[in-house]
């Protein structure tokens, strides 16, 4: 073989080579910055009045763990089916993803989870805490009362709800039209609350005598009585026979007491009740005019609802206010005063005043008033400041030594009157009472403070009971905190809906169901701000192989013998679920 002729006196080779393990080189000794896993607060969850753990809900949804996702919502809000439909979703306005492309359709996913739970008859497996001796009465079975009952029962208390009307639900049942909230959804979520052990006594009116004079068997009373009476227009003719109240009209529809409406209907007002009244009247065949004293952009009704009302043929007359109503041959003649905007166009509602003497008259066959609502009894509302009163963000606590503690909640104490705020109110009341019973009045504020989501005002049930969420930093993750290199552009899902021409035919729900694959795709758009979804970037990028995966429930840990504090893991974490801190130079242990 030719190859054998090659010389054999090769120059010896000299290269660095070690058979020792490099584990002896503890690069952790170089560290002056220390990375650490630390979950933070997502802006959506801070914006949710009910403090839902949205980032985690979407993570679980994206993983197909629908039951766990649903229960994660249920831990903070017993009404995902309702809120997924009727909430004005302030969460989406704060979604970091909107800086990237479009926000995540959080409300659609919440609804999807509730619908899925309903479809598969999922049973809630939240554990009630040990039984307590105190009993709480709840006046009103609206969302705040039901939420209070739900959370008090979870805390181990006996909660009895008293409802004057024959069925529970309050505004959810009587004030929200079926095309927005089908009854089956409401009934299921109320049934779940009942199954948990909340007693609901319907057809039972309560007066102040219920607790006065120290004879009550209850340790506390939650008052969630809501607005049940319309605010008057304060104009001549408003009390004419046949002039209807919007809220009453909506309740009448639910009772099946409304038949076809011929001719033209005018609805006075710009809030959600006005819009619901207008859209419902349209479904009964009326040509509807919605009359509002300010402009469309000033309407307190949710913009999306106004948009759909217009799609459905409702006419909006802006800058008009009724000054007189007269009856004429069974019709109403309404005199409208033109208004004009005064002052600068600001962020808030425009200020308006009558535009000289410009007036016009319209003749309508039906007239609905919906300019606002108020409590029907003055004692439903908290008194002016008195001793033992604690004004909390979503309820007012009135502690008395010889009588049951009163907690005022729901719409009557809320600045923004929404279902989510009502849930927040019931939850805060339940937690506040638990603190009061165990630690006294002075402990209520500081203890509530410790379970705020971010800086509040929403509070977390899971944090209060010491669940994993209590380990989160309250700092809100901002868009600039994320590493968006790891996300791809994907537009928000489009909510399938009935066509406007289909909507007239019935009170069928307008927003249609979405399938699991669409829900997963939408949930995958979520950045899960501040939360670890185990993407393993930290492990992948660690130059010292100091990030290890193990059976630790949090999934990963950092071996500080070798972590040299380069911070790559923190920078490459797409979700800001890690932080880099200065190393303490002297070991105090």
């Amino acid at each position, binding site marked *: 073989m*030719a190859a054998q002729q090659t010389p054999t006196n090769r*120059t010896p080779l000299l*290269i660095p080579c070690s058979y020792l393990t490099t584990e002896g080189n503890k690069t952790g000794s170089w560290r002056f910055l220390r990375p650490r896993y630390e979950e933070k607060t997502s802006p959506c969850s801070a914006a949710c009045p009910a403090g839902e753990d949205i980032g985690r809900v979407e993570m679980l949804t994206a993983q197909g763990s629908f039951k766990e996702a649903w229960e994660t919502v249920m831990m903070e809000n017993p009404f995902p089916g309702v809120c997924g439909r009727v909430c004005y979703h302030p969460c989406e306005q704060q979604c970091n993803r909107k800086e990237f492309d479009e926000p995540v359709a959080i409300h659609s996913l919440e609804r999807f989870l509730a619908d899925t739970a309903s479809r598969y008859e999922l049973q809630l497996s939240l554990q009630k805490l040990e039984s307590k001796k105190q009993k709480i009465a709840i006046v009103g079975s609206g969302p705040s009362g039901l939420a209070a009952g739900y959370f008090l029962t979870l805390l181990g208390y006996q909660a009895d709800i008293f409802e004057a009307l024959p069925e529970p639900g309050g505004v959810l049942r009587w004030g929200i039209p079926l095309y927005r909230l089908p009854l089956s959804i409401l009934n299921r979520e109320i049934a779940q609350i009942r199954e948990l052990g909340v007693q609901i006594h319907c057809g039972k009116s309560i007066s102040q005598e219920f607790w006065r004079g120290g004879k009550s068997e209850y340790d506390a009373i939650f008052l969630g009585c809501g607005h049940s009476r319309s605010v008057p227009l304060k104009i001549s003719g408003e009390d004419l026979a046949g002039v209807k109240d919007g809220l009453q009209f909506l309740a009448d529809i639910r009772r099946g007491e409304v038949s076809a409406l011929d001719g033209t209907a005018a609805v006075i007002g710009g809030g959600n009740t006005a819009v619901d009244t207008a859209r419902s009247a349209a479904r009964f065949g009326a040509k509807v005019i919605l009359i509002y004293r300010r402009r469309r952009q000033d309407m307190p009704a949710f913009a999306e609802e106004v948009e759909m009302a217009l799609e459905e043929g409702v006419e909006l007359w802006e800058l008009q206010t009724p000054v007189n109503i007269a009856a004429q041959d069974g019709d109403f003649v309404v005199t409208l005063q033109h208004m004009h905007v005064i002052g600068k166009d600001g962020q808030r509602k425009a200020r308006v005043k009558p535009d000289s003497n410009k007036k016009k008259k319209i003749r309508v066959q039906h007239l609905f008033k919906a300019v606002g609502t108020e409590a029907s009894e003055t004692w439903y509302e908290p008194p002016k400041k008195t001793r033992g009163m604690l004004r909390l963000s979503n309820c007012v606590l009135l502690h008395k030594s010889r009588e049951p503690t009163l907690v005022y909640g729901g719409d009557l104490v809320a600045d923004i009157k929404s279902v989510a705020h009502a849930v927040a109110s019931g939850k805060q009341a339940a937690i506040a009472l638990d603190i009061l019973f165990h630690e006294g009045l002075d402990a209520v504020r500081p203890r509530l403070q410790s379970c705020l989501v971010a800086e509040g005002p929403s509070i977390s049930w899971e944090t209060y009971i010491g669940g994993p969420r209590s380990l989160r930093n309250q700092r809100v993750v901002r868009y600039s905190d994320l590493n968006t290199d790891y996300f791809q552009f994907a537009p928000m899902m489009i909510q399938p809906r009935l066509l406007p021409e289909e909507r007239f035919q019935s009170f069928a729900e307008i927003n249609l169901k979405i399938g699991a694959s669409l829900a997963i795709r939408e949930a995958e758009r979520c950045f899960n701000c501040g939360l670890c979804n185990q993407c393993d970037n930290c492990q992948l990028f660690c130059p010292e192989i100091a990030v290890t995966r193990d059976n630790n429930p949090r999934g990963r840990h950092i071996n500080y013998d070798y972590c040299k504090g380069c911070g790559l893991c923190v920078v490459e974490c797409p979700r800001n679920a890690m932080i880099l801190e200065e190393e303490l130079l002297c070991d105090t242990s």
Partner: protein
Amino acid sequence: MRHVLEGSHAVSEAVRLARAQVISAYPITPQTHIVEQLSEYCANGTLNARFLRVESEHSALAALIGAASSGVRTFTATSSQGLALMHELLHWASGARLPIVMAQVNRAMAPGWNIWADQTDSLAQRDTGWVQFYCENGQEVLDTTIQAFRLAEWVNLPVMVNLDAFFLSHTYEPVDVPDQKSVDSFLPPYKPRFQLDLANPCAFNQLAPPNIYMEMRHNIQMAMDEAFTFFEQMEEEFGTILGRRHGAVEAIRCDDAEVILITSGTVTSTSRQVVAKLREKGEKVGLLKIKLFRPFPLNLLRELTKPASKIAVIDRNFSFGASGIFAQEVKAALCNFPGHPPVYGYVAGLGGRDITTEVIEDIYWLTKNSTAPENESSWVGLREVDHAVGQS
């Protein structure tokens, strides 16, 4: 068996015959044909090798450093900017003593963008510890590439086989492609002197403090010296089996030459014609082709240029602020050699400009008619240009 082959494919055939085991490259004109052919060979099973696709030349060489450390035969190919991007890893490959073989198609460096022949790309890497060959034709490319594996694996140094862009890479010539058996007998399977081994874990190339670093560098130089002697023995063997020798340098009619032209790469072929023609006219001219650039064949050069009274070096490359690079090397080789002939440096054909027989003849006459070199390099055939940009 003789085939009409493109210069690029002469490389591909050589790598196939050498049974490379891991190939990684990133496409770049005018190199791409080489690895295109090889990727096909990997895909269709002609060559039992792993072809690693990467996102850059830097990664291509990094991947081969890993592969070669595990004790397999490795190959890459690049050109110009691609080679420049590999720079850091060129040092690593030689320092780590990995016998990686690279085909390097000599192309001009940008800017301005120019894809044509120019040797500055590889000559700018002369200090990276790679053995460097400059080939003249397709046959030499094929033979040298096969030899490169043998040499690299013997001395544990990486080897770069250079060929001129287009003049060689894209030109078809008859090339004798040896049979596999002959190549196998010349180039047996690679037996690494060290390799990563899961059964016996170790770490290579970690810290080398001052008390040992210098010895390691000297060890590389010893390997370079050995490469020179081994090359000659290896060529003997290659000649025995395959019947061809190219030599580290080739002297053509230098014995009685008064003027010796020194060339490298394809310009050598053109120079052969000029020398033949001038000899017919009675001019005492010789031609010295330098094929092996690193290690530089100092002693051969000293010996072979002895008869001459003048040396003219033609460089298709340039070191700014100095001169043509081969001219520098030749001068450095001769300066400690008393009575050596004067060295005339000529820069020609940069960026793919033709070096015609007329250009070479001009160089000869300029050298012959000169009494002494007037400067370090004369730029041949510079055109009058309008300096349109940057004038105030």
